[in-house]
């Protein structure tokens, strides 16, 4: 390892070395950037097939990827210290936005998820909350002794509870679960005692039947459909039967790129968005799915490495949470499409068509890079 420069940290007297290379100079992590580019390209190819080989949606999605990448680069330039300082304020703004939704939100298909600032921007506060929550929790724990004490756990749970509930009642169960997971990962990584974790799991399992009565009819329907798709094959069960058929008929190497009949003939619903992995599975088979999973695993692995290498609690918790939350996307989406989880609206990262989630994802990885490349100490 060569050293391009050595500098003194004012006041500490410690020798700090920065890692060499163009990546560091630009505050980017090259392996992660490469993986993101490969996955995005792979995703665009699958999308091209899923939209029936039209180029316009692919270009539009490509632009979103570029915008996301640019945003990531920008985010990576900013020191994590800035994020840490701004965390409480950003979180507060996020919470206010979530509350405002209940008064001024744009209602689409029976749920209010969007906030429109007339003439300026329409955005989805819950999407931003995916990053805000790990941020605030990492901020909350950064100067506290770990493992956290019970009252800290309580307060951090409250921090999770409020936005999750606000989102759950929009209603947007899928996003609220992901956000809850992103918060809980922070707690878990912060070292909450396993006893507490097990107790929480036990409590959750025993409370599940009670939860049944809280769920809305369409949500119950989705769970019943998971258990038995054939109970309403043309209605609620249609999606899952068709996606399983698409996946299963793909076999080991698939029907060939652009040759998927389930998707091209319109049997597969939502084939460009939430169910896009079924297109991949149908056309490129198990091989194509495994390649995607390996790419995801490499990306997550890189994220884990960056998290471990982070030099302070804030960076570690934030990076770890973002990395594992990313996996939750993958698992929930693919579990849902393959019929082992109920249908919740979670897109497949970097593959599903749509701009909001891809922006959030890139922002998340931008934060990871920021944490990694603004290091004060070399290891």
């Amino acid at each position, binding site marked *: 390892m060569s050293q391009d420069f050595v500098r003194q940290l004012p006041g*500490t007297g410690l020798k700090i070395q920065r890692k060499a290379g163009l990546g560091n100079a630009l505050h980017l992590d090259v392996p992660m950037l490469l993986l993101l580019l490969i996955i995005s390209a792979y995703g665009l190819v699958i999308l091209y097939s899923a939209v029936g080989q039209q180029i316009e949606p692919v270009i539009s999605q490509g632009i979103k990827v570029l915008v996301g990448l640019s945003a990531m680069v920008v985010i990576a330039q900013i020191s994590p210290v800035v994020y840490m300082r701004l965390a409480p304020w950003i979180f507060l703004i996020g919470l206010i936005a979530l509350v405002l939704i209940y008064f001024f939100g744009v209602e689409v298909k029976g749920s209010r998820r969007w906030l429109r600032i007339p003439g300026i921007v329409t955005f989805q506060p819950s999407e931003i909350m995916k990053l805000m929550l790990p941020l605030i929790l990492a901020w909350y724990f950064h*100067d506290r*002794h*770990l*493992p956290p004490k019970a009252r800290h756990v309580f307060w951090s749970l409250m921090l999770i509870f409020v936005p999750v509930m606000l989102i759950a009642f929009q209603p947007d169960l899928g996003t609220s679960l992901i956000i809850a997971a992103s918060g809980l*990962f922070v707690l*878990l*990584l*912060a*070292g909450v005692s396993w006893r507490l974790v097990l107790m929480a799991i036990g409590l959750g399992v025993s409370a599940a039947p009670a939860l049944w009565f809280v769920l809305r009819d369409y949500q119950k329907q989705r769970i019943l459909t998971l258990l038995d798709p054939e109970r309403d094959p043309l209605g609620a069960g249609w999606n899952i039967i*068709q996606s*399983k*058929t*698409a*996946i*299963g*008929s*793909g*076999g*080991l190497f698939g029907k060939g790129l652009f040759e998927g*009949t*389930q998707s091209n*003939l*319109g*049997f597969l619903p939502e084939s460009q968005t939430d169910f896009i992995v079924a297109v991949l*599975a*149908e056309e490129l*088979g*198990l091989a194509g*799915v*495994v390649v995607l*999973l390996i790419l*995801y*695993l490499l990306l*997550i*692995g890189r994220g*884990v490495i960056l*998290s*471990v290498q982070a030099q*302070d*609690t804030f960076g*570690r*918790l934030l990076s*770890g949470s973002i990395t*594992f939350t990313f*996996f939750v996307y*993958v*698992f929930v989406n*693919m*579990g849902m499409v*393959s*019929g*082992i989880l109920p249908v919740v609206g979670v897109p497949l990262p970097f593959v599903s068509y749509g701009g909001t989630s891809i922006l959030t994802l890139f922002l998340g990885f931008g934060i990871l890079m920021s944490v990694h490349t603004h290091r004060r*100490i070399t*290891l």
Partner: protein
Amino acid sequence: MVEPLALKDHTWESRIFFSRIVVCFGVLVILMLLLVARFFYLQILQHDIYATLSDKNRIQIQPLAPVRGLIYDRNGELLADNIPSFNLTIAPERVADLDQTLAHLGSILSLTEEDILGFKSRVKRRKPPFDSVPLLFKLTTQEIAQFSVDRHLLPGVGVEAKLVRHYPRGELMVHAVGSVRRINESDAKRLDSVAYSGTDYVGKIGVEKFYEQDLLGRVGYQQVEIDARGKVMKVLESNLPSRGKDLILHVDSSLQAVASEALGDRRGTVVAIEPKTGGILALVSKPGYDPNLFVTGIGHKTYALLRDSKDVPLFNRALQGQYEPGSTLKPIIALAGLVTGVTNADYTIDDPGWFRLPNSKRLYRDWNWHASGTGGHGSVNLEKAIYRSCNIYFYDLAVKMGIDRLDDYLALFGFGVNTVLDLPEARSGLLPTRKWKQETRGLAWYPGDTVNIGVGQGDMLVTPLQLATAVTVIANRGEWVSPRMLKSGSDLIDQSTVRKLDSIALIPDPVWDVVIGAMEKVVHRGNQGYGENGTAWAYIGQDIEYRMAGKSGTAQVVGIKQGEEYDAEELDERQRKHAWFVAFAPVDNPTIALAVLVENGGGGSEFAAPVARAVLDHHLLKKTGNSGRVMASEGAAL
């Protein structure tokens, strides 16, 4: 190692973090393997099941309906055609609110209650789901345009073009050709579901019914890839249907038109047969109806009107109407009498106008008998008995022959049996025998019954087709040919079918000469003074250009009591006698034989013979001309 910078125990915290992240990553890897396992299960272990499901999704076998064979007349004129028809169809699964859609359609197109009922019953019968069901048939371009305006508001509703049967001559040919009808529930149970999988119609009547298997053709199929909306994306494999056979019938449309015109508005029938082949040249039954009404499913009201009409237009009088033959039977009785030697050409009787069986008081009257006591034909031999249609001669002859011998001979001419080869509705009439009377009425045969048979009355019933067939046998001098519609195009009937009736063939020529000569006199014997002319001469025989053999007849509709006179003026129109006339021409080489019936027409010579003359004139004199209609009105005027 890095030394602690602050109060926090960074080493400890890093260690906790590291252990946690390892556990989490471990769980993550397990979950990822779970996903791989799930996809492995679906894609490898259950691949066959899902591959089949996927093919079932996208591949559909669609039947390709064969084009129904066409039907032509002997001159190549089209009698049954297939024309495109635009139907409004609905796929009920794609319609959110059917009643609302129907209401909407009702507001832009004329949609009757009957249309909706018909549609709903068709919905119940259709086979695959997502299939479109017709609601309205034969849309006009204007209706299609009106629908197109609102089309985007009506998902699941569309316009499809289909070939439907069309009968260009409509009512004129309906009783000769028959018709197809839309397949109904009971048909669906009876018919081969594969052969009819693309077909909506089946031959229900007449030639269309008899030659159904030839006309239908063979269904084809195509394996198509469809999308989730059932739209065909591409054809994977196809096996084209083969069209049905075209049929050529013996029938002559122009002759049919002449016969129909000659009957005019009267109820009646004309059956004309080509003696050499047995081919039916004309088969008219009036009134008729437009078969095109039935093709796409007739409305209940229209149907009820046809069904309940007093004139029974749906009834094919030529095949199903059973009437007394009346005096038209006399030439055959005469033949029987001559062959059996019971009478001969020279034998004469004295006709006082009535006949009485020995030891009986009942009087059997002649047709010219009057209650005043006048009437009768004076001295009558067999020839005069035919051209003057003397009843008394035949009462006497019949009684002398006895019913058994009479029956034997009448049966040889096809009475009491159905001999037509390809008209499934034809009935067989009734030839009364001792056995028949014993079985149906439990009564013995009385000599009085035989008396009535002698003049074609009593219990005997014939259809116009049967009578035309019998006349054909006379025209052929005993050589039998079975009547048939088909000229060529099918193997379903054996074209060479002739019933071997040796005993008729054995009738010697001199006997034929006597009877046929007498029939000729019915038409041509004129200017002989009162009571000496042929019965039909005054009406048709005076200006005729060819030699015709004929015989008139009347069939009673109500019994006339003993001692009462038949007075047409006093009877209700529907109780008047039916007028018969049978004929063939030219006598020396007959090319046409026919039977004419005018229901409640009155006397046969006066009312039925002119119809026969018009038909024969057209056939013999104006064969090539298209002047059928002109001829017909002339004929009717005679």
